[in-house]
């Protein structure tokens, strides 16, 4: 099932992040520019925070593992979704820190950042970190923060979007405006 721009916008609207301004504001830079330089050196931008590119690459890579296999359009969806999430005060920093920690662990255990691992290793890494069994806690342990800012932020984005809702069997998931049109409808209407 194809994730669309509309899904990202809807998920962001539901989660109160950035909104339209942020969506237009962030230009992901694939090459050149300061952010890309920081990322290509494989390092974080001061204070243990991941750069824009590092965040994007890691989050897309994780999304490919935590999203169902027949979801397509992940890269664009995650980029747009992140644009809003990174704008949000406090939350953006939380994502950057969690991604930096995840990449550090990936480098020490697999010799490469998470984005460069094959999907099976990404899955294994997340489990070795403990993100599968950890509760999400924004100021918790590394595992709890990775669960909160990385795994669950991505799952939240997907399952509050119309396409994610539809996959699950609800075209108007909680947090998404539209239930007034759908709550009276039967399953076959």
């Amino acid at each position, binding site marked *: 099932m194809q994730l669309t721009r509309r899904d990202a916008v809807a998920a962001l609207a539901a989660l109160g*992040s950035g909104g339209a301004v942020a969506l237009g504001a962030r230009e992901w830079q694939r090459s050149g520019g300061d952010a890309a330089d920081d990322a290509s050196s494989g390092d974080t931008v001061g204070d243990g925070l991941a750069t824009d590119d590092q965040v994007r690459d890691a989050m897309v890579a994780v999304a490919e593992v935590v999203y169902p*296999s027949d979801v397509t359009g992940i890269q664009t969806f995650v980029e747009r979704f992140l644009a809003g999430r990174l704008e*949000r005060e406090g939350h953006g920093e939380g994502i950057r820190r969690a991604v930096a920690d995840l990449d550090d662990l990936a480098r020490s255990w697999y010799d490469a950042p998470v984005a460069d691992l094959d999907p099976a290793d990404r899955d294994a890494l997340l489990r070795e970190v403990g993100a599968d069994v950890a509760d999400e806690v924004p100021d918790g342990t590394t595992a709890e923060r990775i669960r909160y800012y990385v795994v669950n932020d991505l799952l939240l984005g997907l399952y509050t979007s119309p396409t994610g809702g539809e996959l*699950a069997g*609800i075209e108007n998931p909680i*947090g998404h405006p539209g*239930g007034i049109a*759908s709550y009276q409808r039967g399953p076959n209407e």
Partner: protein
Amino acid sequence: MTGSAQADGRDASDRTAGRSADPDRSPVANADVCVVGAGPAGTLVADRLAGRDHEVVVLDAGPRFDETERVERMEKAIRPAFSRPDVWDVGGDRDAYESVGDRHYPLNRTRVKGIGGSTLHWQGMVMRLHEADFASASERGVGANWPIEYSDLRPYYAEAETGIGVAGADDNPFAPPREEPFPMPAFPPSYSDSLFAEACEALEISMHSVPNARNSEGYDGRSACQGYGSCRPVCPSGAKYDGSVHAETAAAKGATVIDRAPVQRLEHTTDRIEAAVFATPDGTEHRQEAETFVVAAGGVETPRLLLLSDSEHYPDGLANSSGAVGRYFMDHVFAGAGGVLEEPTRQNHVGFLTSESHQFYDEADERIAPFKLEFFNFAGPSPVGIALTGEDWGDDLLERIRAEYGNHVTVGALVETLPQAENRVALHPDRTDDHGNPVPEIHWSIDDRAKRTIERANEVQHEILDELGASERWTQGVEGTVPTNHHMGTTRMGSDPSASVVNSSLRTHDLENCWIASSSVFPTAGAMNPTLTIGALALKAADHVDAAL
């Protein structure tokens, strides 16, 4: 007489906008009315009295929440990292309490402090009490009679419905008589209501619409419901009414609304309150003097404030010559049952209820309490909730979501509890809040009649589930029951000053310039959600204050 006539001459918008870093929280000179608490009760009083050209000041313990944060608060509601109290910043030393009764009372899940009060978090079901609820002792042989009747409140009910904005229909054969149409049409029944309707028809149980304090169409400058589905605890669209609506209109009429200004005590002489002493975030205390005072701090903080304001003349607490302040604490209790059908039930599209049944309500007597049935539109888990809590992801997670979401049904019930003197809000002997005041100590137990009624409600619920053919059944009965966030009874209304705290004008028997607007004045609970009645009583209290000024 307007809100701009202020002690230090600062602009009224400094006080009411609350968006400047350091809003003016100084007392208002020459106030006619000081209202304590900016929930629906306090703000309805303030709105009415400001509209009659009185100088009104409202003091609230909590903050003025920024509307632009509502969507973020909704995310907090969805994410397992946060508990319900976190959504509206409830908790910590400010809201410390102790529950010492037979049953734990989870106070901080049942209230919000801030402009708008607990309605920021509420579900928004708004119905009138039935006629018999006002005469429980004579009609049902238990509980107390109110000193007023349904007919005394009836015009105020209509005004409260208009003020709050109620979407409803005249399709409830059990409801008390009404002359006025609802301000807005009811929300049509949900798809799952239609499944229940078939079962209920077979069992001869009538269903009808729920009057909702949410806009079924644009109303009073607020948008129609958008169907976010997160009504409780946050409506991001503003379609669900909350008390901040009347804080705004009161301010527009000249009232001064001061947030983060918890009243510490009420200074008084033998028969008059002279000032409300309130604290501000900068650590100072101020005295707000006024001609009259309306205490509208909710059903727990209202008696607590009176108890904290004890004096030589009122050693057991202000306005407490009767000894009833804090006593007869009541809530409704919940009975529920649910299960899974072999077909989709389409839950969690909206966060409110569209159908109920009051059929069993008027069968109430000495043995069985009034109760009403609620047909849920948000039974079972939501896909987002499932996604954030498992140990799986990818295809495994999707498979689990598909298996767990979509087929649930729940039928709930609200049950009346009786006023019992030993159920009460007292002051804790040792524990204090962030200002050094004793915290509320809640004593709560459930009477046998309520327990029998929970069992009876469960019986009816099971019949409905049998008829639906539901499997994987669960029941929330006497052991698992929970209170439903309605704090009633702690400053009861009555004509006998030795047995009640306020009279039928909502004025305290003891003090000539102190009124109470709250469900704390309810002598009995009924089994209807209380806030429409709170609104009606608040408007009535405002009229009495107006007449006294």
